[in-house]
């Protein structure tokens, strides 16, 4: 497929002019159906092993895009690929982590983490061993036999991460995972996530509406605009790792922040022009982006 020649070998996920149009139930007055464009020409390549954030305002379709990549929502045009294969449904090569944790309340921490392994049909002892390993990775070994209601929000999300990592997906798709926890816990979870990411070498696609969170975590930040939901710009984040809280007050961080801020506010028409002119915005290499 020539798609691969376009995206390059490093791209584990490639979204090619992905579009999603909903037909709204309430028809217009003249009887014609109403359509809502949730995603329009979303083109994005995700490099293997990178941490990529997608930042955008509420309702811009960033979560929807993530769910399409997870195979949980069907696109209406374009295509998305993982390892060169078109995404047609959910599979264990992608793990999604949701804002609401979505741990099964009737299963203990251990059994929650084993869920994907059951789907994978791993034998019982092997499941327990792998689950132990990943519960330990997120630092919650002593809570193995607890039920989710006994855990705090931050702990639940760490277990959700362990559950997704346990079945060894290539890509973690994270949908505003830390939006529901308090500020201090969030800081701790950022550090934890980066530690886990470096240890497991996974590719992470992280959706957020927080500009600071997007910059702090990522190698690259994709900026998404609303109506229609599309990616405007992809920005390289050249901050050294490991990242630290102090970096948030550095000059570079401020420049990234203001760049993203401006692009989120820019009128949509400009993006449209760019889109029609270039076909896909991601063609812009990071060093072409003037800061």
């Amino acid at each position, binding site marked *: 497929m020539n798609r691969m020649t376009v995206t390059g070998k490093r791209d584990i996920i490639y979204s090619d002019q992905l579009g999603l149009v909903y037909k709204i139930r309430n028809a217009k007055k003249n009887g014609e159906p109403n359509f809502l464009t949730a995603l329009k020409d979303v083109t994005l390549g995700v490099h293997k092993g990178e941490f990529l954030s997608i930042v955008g305002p509420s309702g811009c379709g960033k979560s929807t895009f993530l769910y399409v990549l997870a195979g949980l929502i069907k696109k209406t045009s374009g295509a998305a690929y993982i390892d060169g294969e078109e995404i047609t449904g959910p*599979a*264990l090569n992608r793990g999604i982590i949701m804002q609401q944790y*979505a741990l*099964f309340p*009737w299963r203990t921490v251990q059994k929650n983490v084993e*869920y994907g392994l059951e789907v994978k049909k791993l034998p019982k002892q092997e499941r327990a061993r792998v689950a132990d390993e990943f519960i330990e990775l997120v630092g919650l070994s002593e809570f193995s036999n607890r039920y*989710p209601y006994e855990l705090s929000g931050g702990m639940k999300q760490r277990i959700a991460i362990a559950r997704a990592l346990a*079945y060894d997906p290539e890509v973690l798709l994270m949908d505003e995972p830390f939006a529901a926890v308090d500020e201090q816990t969030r800081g701790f979870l950022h550090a934890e996530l980066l530690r886990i990411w470096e240890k497991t070498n996974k590719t992470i696609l992280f959706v957020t509406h927080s500009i600071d969170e997007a910059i702090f975590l990522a190698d690259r930040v994709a900026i998404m605009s609303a109506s229609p939901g599309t990616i405007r710009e992809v920005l390289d984040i050249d901050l050294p790792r490991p990242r630290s809280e102090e970096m948030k007050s550095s000059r570079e961080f401020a420049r990234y922040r203001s760049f993203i801020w401006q692009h989120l506010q820019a009128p949509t028409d400009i993006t449209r022009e760019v889109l029609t002119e270039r076909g896909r915005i991601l063609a812009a290499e990071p060093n072409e982006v003037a800061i």
Partner: protein
Amino acid sequence: MSKALNLAGGYLKSILGVLVFLLAWEIASRIGLINNTFIPPFSKVVVNLAELIADGTLFHHMAISLMRSLAGLGLGIGVGVPLGLAIGQIPAVERFLGSLLETLRQTSVLALIPVFILLLGLGETSKIAMIFWGTLWPILLSTIGGVKGVDPTYITASRSMAETRVGVFLKVILPAALPSIFTGVRLAATGAVMLLIAAEMVGASSGLGFLIYDYQVKYQIPKMFAVIAVFSIMGLVLNFGFVNAEKRLIRWRPE
């Protein structure tokens, strides 16, 4: 020692209302504040109850009553739970059957007693059928409610891990709906006892409901009250049993 006393004291406090009520009953009946021909003193009821237990009458009829209610409840669960799961899963079926089910549910089973007798006669079948009918609705509706009330994020999480449809149903929808199903069964079970009395009062020759009716007709009022008391105790035991079973079965919720 003091701990045991505290515990006993706490228990005593919790049943104080019942004790006061029984004492007031005893006194009111003895001093003639209420007509003791129709409402004999509680102590007399207890003595009669002991006689009924001793001569085996009570257990004979109780066994028959329990068999009927268990058969009816068993059928109610056997039909209500699978049907409810199916209806809750398929929105089209729910839209189609929703208003019909609502109407049938509102049709009192007591009003249908003559219909059951006409169709099924006076034997066991009609009594079991009545209890089945009465227990079906709470079980069916709470099962549908349970299935429809499953948090969609659980289903999404399960599907994202490439779970099959059957897997999602068995490992997510069913356990998530279980508390609601259990509540339905508990309501149905306590309702079944009530229905049983009505069913056995109309054209039966055995069972606890028949016994109450029979003693009333024969004017053996203390014995009648003794059987009524047995029903109260049965109801209490049943509810207690279900609440405890629920706690044991569903440990994943905060107390």
